[in-house]
């Protein structure tokens, strides 16, 4: 291209003009220094300078002229103005479009990565729990049919529940079952596992929800008072009580409650029945005690950590009211670790629900798992454990996303990476 342009310029009159001008220059230079003029040298010099000049001119010309007609970018930019092309391009490029859409915005990207992680965890938990149960030395057929069952009866049982198939086939079925909400029938009682779980899970969740609510309502003000009046009598008393709350085993607390409130004073019913609002009080308190205690401790310590930060000193120096500094500056920044601990402890609470449910004779998911574990009834235990794990993962996911929205520090961090 460059060559073509140069040839073109050389053929035109500008080239001879240039040579002429350089010859003039050369001549005047020699005249000035009173040197002899060699025709040959003069011609050579002039041509060389002219060629250099032509090269520059050609380059300049090339830059100004439109040379991108063979470029991809230009081609597609033109194509993209065509509506039909855009629609058609979605067919091969859908993944790329999604990728771009996700990665263009840091927040969306963060949420997407957390989602992928959650799905990975859920599937891995399924595989892990199934493998443990599969390789257990216990034999469900022998446990259910009894010692006297013949080998054929056992084989019949194994065949009916697919236990005679290979590990990989069973694992695939179990994973598929978890994801499609169809886990087949339980070994004992031959009931639909999914239907049982769907019946029992709401009970556990209701109690867990009220416990969580109770914990937040009690613990955060208590933690705030303790932090505001550090090393005071109230601080010591509250934290002492919180430590006792952390140290009480759920089942013992439940038994003592039943002993006092049901057997001695006849105030509250000892067992839970779904319609009766009075009967939910004791399980909720028992389940929520540990959570209340840890949230109260966390609130206190995270506020105390924040109180020494520089922005608090600044706020005080500006002459803000102490109450305003405490609520608007200290508490707002301290709430972030508190939310994390609530998310994490909620999971622990769902796990611990099994014990509380047993004490109060609640037919929730926890006591369902415990009842089925003696067999071991693989689909029931697998379903119970994995669905609780899924719930916890989703709660933690929600907490993390909430975090990203609430915390400007994290948002700006995400933008920088």
């Amino acid at each position, binding site marked *: 291209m460059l060559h073509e342009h140069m040839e073109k310029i050389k053929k035109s009159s500008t080239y001879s003009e240039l040579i002429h001008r350089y010859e003039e220059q050369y001549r005047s230079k020699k005249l000035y220094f009173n040197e002899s003029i060699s025709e040959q040298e003069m011609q050579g010099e002039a041509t060389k300078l002219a060629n250099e000049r032509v090269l520059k001119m050609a380059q300049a010309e090339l830059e100004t002229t439109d040379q991108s007609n063979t470029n991809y970018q230009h081609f597609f930019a033109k194509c993209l103005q065509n509506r039909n092309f855009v629609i058609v391009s979605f067919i091969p490029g859908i993944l790329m479009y999604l990728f771009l859409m996700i990665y263009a915005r840091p927040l969306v990207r963060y949420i997407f990565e957390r989602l992928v992680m959650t799905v990975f965890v859920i599937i891995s*938990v399924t595989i892990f729990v199934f493998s443990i*149960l599969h390789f257990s030395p216990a034999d469900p057929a022998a446990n259910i049919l009894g010692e006297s069952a013949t080998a054929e009866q056992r084989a019949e049982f194994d065949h009916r529940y697919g236990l005679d198939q290979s590990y990989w086939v069973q694992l695939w079925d179990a994973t598929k079952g978890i994801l499609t909400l169809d886990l087949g029938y339980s070994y004992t009682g031959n009931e639909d596992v999914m239907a049982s779980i769907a019946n029992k899970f709401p009970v556990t969740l209701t109690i867990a929800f009220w416990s969580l609510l109770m914990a937040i309502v009690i613990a955060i003000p208590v933690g705030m008072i303790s932090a505001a009046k550090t090393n005071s009598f109230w601080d*010591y008393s509250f934290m002492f009580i919180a*430590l006792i709350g952390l140290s009480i085993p759920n089942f013992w607390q439940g*038994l003592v409650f039943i*002993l006092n409130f049901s057997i001695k004073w006849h105030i509250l019913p000892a067992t839970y029945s779904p319609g009766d609002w009075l009967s939910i009080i004791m399980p909720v308190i028992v389940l929520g005690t540990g959570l209340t205690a840890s949230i109260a401790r966390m609130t206190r310590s995270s506020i105390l950590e924040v109180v020494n930060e520089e922005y608090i000193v600044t706020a005080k120096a500006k002459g803000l009211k102490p109450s305003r500094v405490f609520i608007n500056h200290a508490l707002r920044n301290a709430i972030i670790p508190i939310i994390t601990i609530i998310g994490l402890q909620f999971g622990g609470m769902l796990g611990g629900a099994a*014990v509380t449910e047993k004490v109060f004779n609640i037919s929730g998911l926890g006591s369902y798992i415990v009842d089925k*574990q003696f067999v071991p009834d693989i689909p029931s235990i697998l379903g119970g454990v994995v669905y609780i794990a899924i719930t916890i993962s989703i709660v933690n996911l929600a907490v993390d996303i909430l975090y990203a929205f609430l915390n400007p520090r994290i948002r700006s961090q995400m933008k920088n990476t």
Partner: protein
Amino acid sequence: MTAQQDFALKRSQEYKHALFVLVISIALVLVFLVNAFDVTEGTWNKVWGSLTIAYLVIACWQAIILFCMKRDLLNTGDIQKRTRLMSAVNLLTILVGNVFTTTFAFRMLRRKASIEYTISYYMLLTQLLIVSVSLLNLFKPYVSDMFLLTMAVFILLIIFDVVAVVIFGKVDTDRQIKPAFKWLGIALIITGFSGNIFGCILGYSVLLKSTNRDMSTIEKWNKIWSKITKNFTAMLGLLFVIFTFAISIASYGTFVYEFAVENNYESMLLEPSLANPFGTDNFGRDVFSRIIYGARISLIVGVVSTLIPLVIGGFLGAIAGYYNKSIDNVIMRILDVLYAVPGILLAIAIIAAFGANTVNLIIALSVGSIPTYARTMRANVMMVSNLEFVEAAKALGEADWKIIFKQVVPNSFAPMIVKATLTIGGAVIATSSLSFLGLGVEPHIPEWGNILKVGSMYLETNPYLAIFPGIAIILLVLSFNFLGDGLRDALDPKLD
């Protein structure tokens, strides 16, 4: 009240301690009072009643001491000798078992706080508690063959401990310690093998100070232990933990295992009495002996199921934190899977698969807590491996594993110790919870959860069967939590 006076009150740890002791004593009086008076029949229980009166007197005396202390502090800024002597009367409260006032009285007797003195009187108290609990066996039909011999040894130990308390009360261990003290240190460590670990700690401290010329080691030791010994709640926690450990060892000599496990149908479901302080259960077994033997299991399971994840999780966390990116990602993502299932639920699943017994229980509890330890370790290793001394080791061409285990891990271990102490309590609760569900220790072994399970069946008729083992669990867990909080303050790890 001037600012100086206010400061004197706030600064005084002894004043704070006195207040705590008073509040606890009053709370105990109230608890005993509730037990002493039977509302439905309107009668007073003699044992509880006399205890209430004794504790009420103690609380009043404590209130007087507190008042004198406050006056001293406000007037002179220091506690006067007379007040200190007044509190010496409270030494007698050990006779009714009020360790709170006793420890306070011991503390007041020495003007300047000393690590060795504090540990030595806690050692003496532990020994006294062991002997008094063991003496309850005298009310049984018969005692074990080893009983007399063991008790004689314990009495000797008490005398030795009293001597130690007197010595350390007089000697200032930071200045006037002589090389000859090392024999005392060795003797103390030997007494520690009876289960009274205070002896080991004290002996080591004396040995360190009498033989070591390296001041930085002594300085470090002093810094940590002076913080712990000043923290009375942590010391009380340590006292109960060591007492539980020591009584589990002492029970080999002083308790009769048959009372705890053999059925005796002549004495079923008896009320608490001197022969059976906590009554008997539905098979006529003595609940008190069962609880003492149960302490062994609870401690072993609690400690082992904390140590296993501490080692495995710590190792994985150290590797993940030291090597960046790919190894870190692989390890942490695998541990995330374990982290998603709540500990108890995972334990139930593992026990469902492999059966309920003690070994499986320990494994099940351990697996669930590996991720939390790994996370703690990883965070600390990441912080420490950016420090200069690690870079120096790298520059010297040290091998990676040597850097990790000789430089990085020892310097990031403090939070792990704190975490472990705080989670032993959780492990004890988890053990008894699973036993209560029938998923833990085998039912015939006396374990606190198993005892409670039996007790829960007789809640209406014999509630004490369920209450006493529960109190034992709470006290042990509470002690571990207090100790953990104290350790956190003393080691001051930079927890994330």
